[in-house]
């Protein structure tokens, strides 16, 4: 087997201390540089799975291999350097008193020199488009800015794998677009847990669908995230454009547009449909 697999999860099961089962026999593999959407209704086990991949939740029921290293107590510090987690609520992620200290927290703990830390902070803030925010206090930032700084706190550790929990939730359209564009520029392997199917279609190549702690479907995101029946049966909803046109139109649209274009040209497509040009699109 080639070594380009960043994440290998085999037979992972987990039950919360109160007895609630969270993960059941979860298995999947993710290759280097892949962007994977992790979808599922609330309580499906998405966040719990992400916390396992970073070693925050210790669990011996199953096997996790991250960039060639098996996740165990001995390897946890190394694995945390390779796997960055961006949590849903930026107020949980930004716990220091200034943006600089927050972004520098990871690199300092990794033992880098002062100069390197400063350089990494500068670069990370540049990547998320918030240079000059170093001395700001997190409680004086907007929610969108906090989200982007949260991403920067992890980028400064230059992780091989980036795990993001609901990166676009509670954002206004502008803030959401900023986050999407920022994520698209990052090269690392990404797992994005979200309910924002449209943004996932734009960012991710593949998708994992979870329900009640199990992986129920894996595949190309354009197949999984546009399958109205599949999504509905697991408490999710397809994007409005897919619902309007029907899921069989997506493969045909894909030949002409990529997923981001489908989203951007939503109005045009609607217009085309309303003018009864649906047949022309299908024929093409």
């Amino acid at each position, binding site marked *: 087997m080639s070594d380009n697999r960043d994440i290998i999860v085999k037979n992972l099961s987990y039950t919360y201390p109160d007895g609630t089962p969270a993960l059941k026999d979860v298995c999947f593999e993710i290759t280097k540089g892949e962007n994977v959407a992790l979808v599922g209704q609330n309580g499906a086990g998405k966040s719990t799975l992400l916390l396992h991949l970073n070693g925050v939740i210790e669990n011996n029921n199953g096997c996790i291999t991250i960039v060639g290293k098996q996740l165990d107590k001995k390897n946890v510090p190394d694995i*945390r350097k390779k796997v960055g987690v961006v949590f849903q609520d930026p107020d949980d992620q930004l716990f220091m008193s200034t943006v600089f200290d927050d972004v520098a927290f*990871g690199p300092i703990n990794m033992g880098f020199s002062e100069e390197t830390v400063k350089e990494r902070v500068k670069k990370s803030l540049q990547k998320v488009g918030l240079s000059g925010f170093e001395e700001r206090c997190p409680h004086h930032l907007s929610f969108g800015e906090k989200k982007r700084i949260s991403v920067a706190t992890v980028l400064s550790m230059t992780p091989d794998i980036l795990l993001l929990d609901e990166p676009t939730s509670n954002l206004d359209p502008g803030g959401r677009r900023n986050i999407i564009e920022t994520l698209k520029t990052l090269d690392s392997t990404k797992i994005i847990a979200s309910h924002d199917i449209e943004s996932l279609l734009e960012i991710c190549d593949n998708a994992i669908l979870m329900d009640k702690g199990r992986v129920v479907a894996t595949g190309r995101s354009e197949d999984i995230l546009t399958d109205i029946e599949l999504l509905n049966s697991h408490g999710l909803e397809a994007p409005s454009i897919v619902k309007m046109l029907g899921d069989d139109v997506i493969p045909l649209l894909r030949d002409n547009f990529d997923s981001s274009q489908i989203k951007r040209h939503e109005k045009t497509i609607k217009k085309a449909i309303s003018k009864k040009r649906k047949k022309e699109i299908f024929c093409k």
Partner: protein
Amino acid sequence: MTHFDIDKYAYLKSPFHNFDPRAKVLCFLLLIFSIVLLNDIRVLLIAFISTIILVLISKIPLLFILKRFKWVALFIFAVLVVLPFTVPGENAFYIGFLSVSHSGILLATRVSLKAFSVMLLIFPMLSTMKFVIFIKTLEHFKIPDKLVQMISFIYRYIFVVSNEFQRTLRSVSSRNVGKKTRIFRHHILSNIIGMTLVRSYERGERIRIAMLSRGYNGNMKTLNSFRMTKKDLIKCSIIIIWSISLHVIVLTKILDLARVVNSV
């Protein structure tokens, strides 16, 4: 949402605002100890006047200081009222059947002058720098890491918790609780406080996880860019010399000498 104006006057321009925080804290602490150790009431008065001058130099609005002063003033006022009646000594005068002693009046004045001077000095020391810088200064002075972390977290999350509390209060008032009985209102308020505590606890857990995932190992290190300049050294020297001078005045009995000279 309302935020506390803790850093409100940290951005003014005065000789104390651009003073190296480490030097500033050390010098002011020295001055505070120097004043606390004084016993001569005349020197204490001089120290008090010098403190007022330092506050004026810091450009912090007096109204801001007075607002924060009222609770301390209340405490000092209680001392001022009680001591003249309770300290034994030569009677100065009577109020009704209560005797007021000379030594009581002197002690009360001494305590009040010391307390007011120390309280006033806190403003040019702390209000002229951002609270974050103060935390870094504590860290630099090797104050126990756990204590610094606690102060840092309180500063970071007091705003978040306060916002959560205000949101819940607003939600309650939007459902018209105000019209209910007082007991019912107290019951609701205790529920809100309880919920805020539970939420804070849960948030604490999530923050711990976020810290662990970024390599937290119990110690929290930060970088700082403190630099001592020549100007800082001059300011330091002035405050240190003044702190020592206050005691030199007492030791050399200069004030007594002046009185003797005047009487001659």
